[in-house]
């Protein structure tokens, strides 16, 4: 079969790989849709291969694509016949951890520190007709949703949902979302569905137009407007109850914290090389940390990313 491989330096190649066969406890999915995620841009743009760009080592070409969705094609020995019969529509939680540590045991395998495989980054992913992964990483896709929607939920949209739950967004809140890429746009759409008043921030007019269409009540172009001031102006000088950074850009992460009002809740979702933003000690206090949205075998996402949730306690 043929699969997409990121070469770094904005180059990619379609290479030939053997069709996967399921080993013990594994399932092969016939891929119907494979999503493009913002985090793909790291290995796509990187100097060197995908795994190296994540600091995860790895060797040899790896098939990209970590938003898999399709149907079960074959199951290996030890997968019970009723677990996921051939033809079952599935999404995939694309991580395999050690299976023993405290994170793996509660389903947060993306936080495992004892040898993690990230399908689409360090293990073969879904930009190919077939993908193999452990049966326990399969997540059923409701009949009402298309494979394409399932692919989005497999990472980006699931990440947004997990983060919004973590900061407990509700109809009582204004939610400011920094970055309107696939994760940020999902947060706008889901935050709106959760009843929040949404302020969408980005530097791209095209993406802000999409945000408006998806339920943003207000949009702020941070290219020409100070988003912290704009968000305070839109919230009677108080700041927003909830804010979220989906960019990973240091300035935006700091702005997301500063845009939150007293007792505000902040989610930092995007992959970023730098540690969580430092704000003055008197303004902000971290209350809970690792979060790879999307949730246990499903929370927040990204082994190496800090998707942290903060509560702003005082000014």
């Amino acid at each position: 079969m043929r699969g997409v491989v990121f070469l770094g330096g904005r180059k990619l190649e379609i290479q030939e790989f053997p069709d996967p066969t399921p080993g013990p406890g594994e399932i092969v999915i016939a891929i119907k849709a494979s999503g493009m995620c913002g985090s793909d841009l790291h290995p796509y743009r990187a100097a060197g291969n995908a795994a190296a760009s994540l600091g995860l080592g790895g060797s040899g070409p790896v098939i990209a694509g970590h938003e898999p969705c399709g149907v079960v094609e074959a199951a290996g020995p030890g997968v019970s016949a009723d677990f996921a019969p051939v033809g079952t529509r599935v999404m995939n939680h694309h991580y395999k951890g050690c299976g023993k540590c405290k994170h793996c045991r509660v389903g947060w395998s993306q936080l495992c520190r004892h040898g993690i495989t990230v399908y689409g980054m360090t293990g073969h992913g879904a930009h190919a007709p077939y993908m193999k992964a452990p049966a326990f990483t399969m997540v059923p896709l409701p009949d009402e949703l298309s494979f394409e929607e399932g692919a989005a939920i497999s990472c980006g949209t699931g990440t947004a949902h997990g983060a919004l739950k973590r900061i407990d967004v509700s109809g009582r809140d204004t939610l400011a979302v920094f970055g309107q890429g696939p994760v940020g746009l999902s947060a706008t759409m889901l935050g709106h569905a959760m009843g929040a008043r949404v302020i969408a921030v980005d530097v791209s007019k095209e993406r802000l137009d999409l945000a408006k269409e998806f339920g943003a009540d207000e949009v702020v172009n941070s290219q020409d407007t100070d988003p912290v001031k704009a968000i305070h102006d839109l919230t009677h000088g108080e700041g927003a109850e909830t804010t979220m950074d989906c960019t990973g850009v240091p300035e935006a992460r700091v702005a997301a914290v500063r845009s939150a009002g007293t007792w505000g809740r902040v989610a930092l979702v995007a992959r970023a090389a730098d540690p969580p933003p430092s704000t003055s000690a008197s303004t902000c206090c971290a209350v809970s940390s690792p979060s790879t949205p999307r949730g246990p075998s499903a929370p927040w996402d990204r082994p190496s990313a800090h998707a942290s949730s903060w509560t702003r306690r005082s000014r």
Partner: protein
Amino acid sequence: MGQAECARFIVDKKVPLKKLLTHRFKLDEAERAYKLFDTQTTGKGVFVF
């Protein structure tokens, strides 16, 4: 499972997630797909099989 819960929420609340998917590609179009996605001006792109 958070992912399953997210999927159910989208169904139950009729979230128009389909709208997020602005670009569809065949695998052979991968180069063009990522060139476009790299501009960071689009919604979500997806490869369909």
